[in-house]
């Protein structure tokens, strides 16, 4: 064999893996449907009995467990080419995630693409069923095609209803939720939970805060948080409670507080909240959890025509003191509620001990579930009003 032939031979050998390892999954972008939000509900027997009958004809023993709903935007509308509905929605009953996908694929002319998935919504009913919830959540976690930043929600309504909401802005619910969650001035009363963080939280402390989405008067609202523990939802927090929980977690930096001093309501805008948590074991073997929160304040509402007050250092001191008392109490109550009622360690006290007090943690980690509810909490809120605004 001469040299040329050997060269060609080597080239062919080199070319085979090149071709065979390529991504031969070409789908044109306009043939894809970019699913933006996906929701799961628990299937109930009398629900959609009509459809079930249809399924029974094709499958031997259908056990429908979920209602899977997916929505994707009408891209032609976004590009300004057509008029029409802002989104398409497909719902199906299924036995598993994969089954649901196959079912929908039979009905839709587009290829589904979950790379741009923005939100996944679980009805609380489903989240209370540990088996179902773990199945679906595992699928999300396992997928390499999903963005870890996608928003995770629980809802007291049906996920299907949430996805079918008309946002009134001519846009898809998934995109709407994303913009709602990612806006520059973030709402302080909604928990922040993207899938990555919730997975980390569940791994580290077996508890997490999941934002809650509700439908009220045909409009969507992000409101409060659901508390996840042991892979199910164990309770919910209201909006103010969520805000306080986020302060304790150190995730809220700018918060407004309305407070009554000397019989008048005033609003203090707290900026630069610095939360520090410290947990330790005292000599009697009791666990203490101390929060030190430093805040800078900005009086944004006072009482018209009382200029001297806001400039009075003693008055400001009184405001500070009052706020410290009130807020510290509020935060302590919240901590105890989560600690005693739900017995969930969402503030990661255990993780803190493991990281910073490894000796203590070694001692108590076996009995942490019993020890944690008995831990003593103290919140030290340090308010410092620095700015009082402009006056005549």
């Amino acid at each position, binding site marked *: 064999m001469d040299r040329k032939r050997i060269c060609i031979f080597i080239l062919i050998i080199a070319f085979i893996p090149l071709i065979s390892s390529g*991504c031969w999954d070409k789908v044109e972008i306009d043939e894809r449907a970019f699913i933006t939000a996906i929701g799961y509900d628990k299937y109930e027997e009398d629900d959609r009995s009509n459809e079930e009958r249809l399924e029974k004809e094709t499958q031997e023993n259908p056990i429908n467990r979920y209602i899977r709903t997916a929505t994707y935007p009408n891209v032609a509308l976004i590009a300004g080419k057509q008029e029409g509905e802002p989104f398409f929605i497909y719902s199906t009953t299924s036995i598993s995630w994969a089954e649901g996908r196959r079912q929908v694929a039979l009905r839709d002319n587009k290829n589904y693409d979950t790379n741009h998935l923005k939100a996944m919504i679980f009805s609380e009913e489903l989240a209370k069923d540990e088996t179902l919830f773990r199945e679906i959540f595992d699928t999300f976690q396992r997928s390499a095609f999903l963005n870890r930043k996608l928003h995770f929600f629980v809802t007291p309504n049906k996920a299907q209803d949430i996805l079918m909401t008309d946002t009134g802005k001519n846009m898809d619910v998934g995109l709407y939720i994303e913009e709602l969650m990612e806006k520059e001035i973030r709402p302080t009363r909604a928990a922040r939970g993207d899938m990555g963080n919730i997975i980390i939280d569940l791994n580290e402390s077996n508890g997490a805060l999941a934002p809650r989405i509700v439908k009220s008067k045909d409009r969507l609202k992000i409101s409060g948080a659901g508390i996840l523990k042991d892979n199910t939802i164990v309770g919910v927090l209201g909006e103010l409670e969520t805000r306080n929980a986020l302060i304790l977690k150190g995730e809220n930096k700018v918060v407004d507080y309305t407070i009554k001093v000397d019989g008048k309501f005033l609003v203090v805008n707290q900026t630069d909240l610095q939360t520090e948590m410290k947990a330790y074991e005292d000599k009697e073997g009791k666990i203490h959890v101390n929060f030190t929160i430093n805040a800078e304040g900005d009086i944004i509402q006072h009482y018209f025509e009382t200029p001297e007050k806001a400039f009075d250092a003693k008055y400001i001191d009184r405001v500070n003191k009052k706020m410290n008392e009130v807020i510290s109490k509020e935060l302590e109550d919240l901590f105890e509620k989560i600690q005693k009622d739900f017995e969930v360690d969402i503030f990661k006290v255990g993780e803190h001990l493991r990281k910073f007090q490894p000796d203590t943690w070694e001692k108590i980690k076996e009995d942490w579930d019993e020890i944690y509810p008995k831990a003593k909490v103290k919140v030290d809120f340090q308010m410092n009003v620095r700015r009082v605004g402009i006056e005549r």
Partner: protein
Amino acid sequence: MGDYQKLFEPKKNKGNKINITKNLQENLKKVKEILSDCDDMVYREFNVGVNQNLKFATVYTEGLADKIIVNEYVLKNLMMLSRMTEPEVRNVREKVYDLIKDGVLSVTDLEEVDDLNKVVDSILTGETVLFIDKWDKAIIIASKGWPMRGISEPESDVVIRGSREGFTETLRVSTVLIRRRIRDPKLKVKQMKIGKRSKTDIAVLFIDGLVNQDILKTVVYRLRKIEIDGIMESGYVEQLIEDNWRSPFPHIQSTERPEKVAAGLYEGKVAIVIDNTPFVLIVPTTFNTLLQASEDYNERFIVASALRILRYIAVMISILLPALYIAMLSYHPGMIPTELALYIAGNRDGVPFPAAIEAFIMEGILELLREAGIRLPGPIGSTIGIVGGLVLGQAAVEAGIVSSLMVIVVAITAIATYSIPDYSFGISFRLLRFTFMAAAAFLGLYGVMIVFLITLTHLSNLKSFGIPYLAPLNYNMSIKDLKDTFIRAPLHRMKRRPEFIAKNDKNRMADSFSRDYLKKGEDNSG
């Protein structure tokens, strides 16, 4: 005899010599035989001397030789002046040749030859040959003078700040333009002829003491080896002496700008000037030099550096953008930001072609437009641009045959390609772009990466006359080597010539030179 005489010594063709006889008529007959059927030759026989007993003859090519020189300074002197002075007959008989050579012809450049072949060559280059009866030599009188184009601004290599002079088709004018920029006796101009029939003059220019001897020897060796009947343009020489004829990248720089050549010579490079073309070749050439405009050195260094970086970005855009468009749209829509992905998807809704076909159609049309525009005269050329670019693009989008984003991509690519200063370099990238697009169409980003790596491998493998093409971007480069690459360092910081070329005299500026004295106010500026 200079140091380089031996290097440039032509090969001797021994068997070919035709002796000049003492018989004038016989000589003329031989010349006429060789130049038979060449009606543009002028033969003039005349008698000289008081007694009209000396027979002379001149031969030259009409149009190539300057008639004024022949008439005023050769014929007139010989026929009239020599008749007025009355030499002693005996002396004349013996010294007539010296007398004529040294005393009569008022032309600066004379040469005696004894070979008829040389005589014919000289006639064909525009010299005038003087035969004298009863003498076995001929005198070649330099009388080249043909209509030539004046020096004008180069069309292919335009600058805003810089010299407006460009090379012309005449070799001598071109070397003069370079000589005017290097008034150094060390600037050597060595000439040779290439082409069996065209006998094209080629001048090799270099600065003695600066030039990299290895490169010079390689250049001369390769030029010597050329055996071809005719050289039409510098492109012929370029293709015959370049290192790798398979490569899509030019590794010899051709330019119309004298200062570019002069700057190259100052860096220790070698210039090859070729007759009949305004393009001068500079060797060796690196990837980096092809992305430099001569204006870079005339502008402030911050501006110049920014422009350099911009050009590198333009290169990346011009080869990668359509390929990325295809790969992203067809294989990896997840990599596009959501809003954009949705917009593109909506925008492409109803477009009948896949992204790859669409891109090939549009890029193909762009190349067609460019090709059509180049061959047409100016005003019609711009009409093509308008019809093609505006009307066609708009109509295609409105008809829904291509998406508007594709038109934008094509336009950006075209603009990026045109911002590459060297024309032939730009063509290489245009070609390469289609390879990238094909790879993207079949294999997505994976394919783009493969072709990118293959291209890089090829580039790092390429050499121009022994100098790595990617120099000074080597595996062992230091920060200092980057002074004249992605950025252009301030002029007073570039004290050394490029180290990979200049081996002998490395200092461009005196080491002692610094701009610090300005700070101290020594120049009385206060």
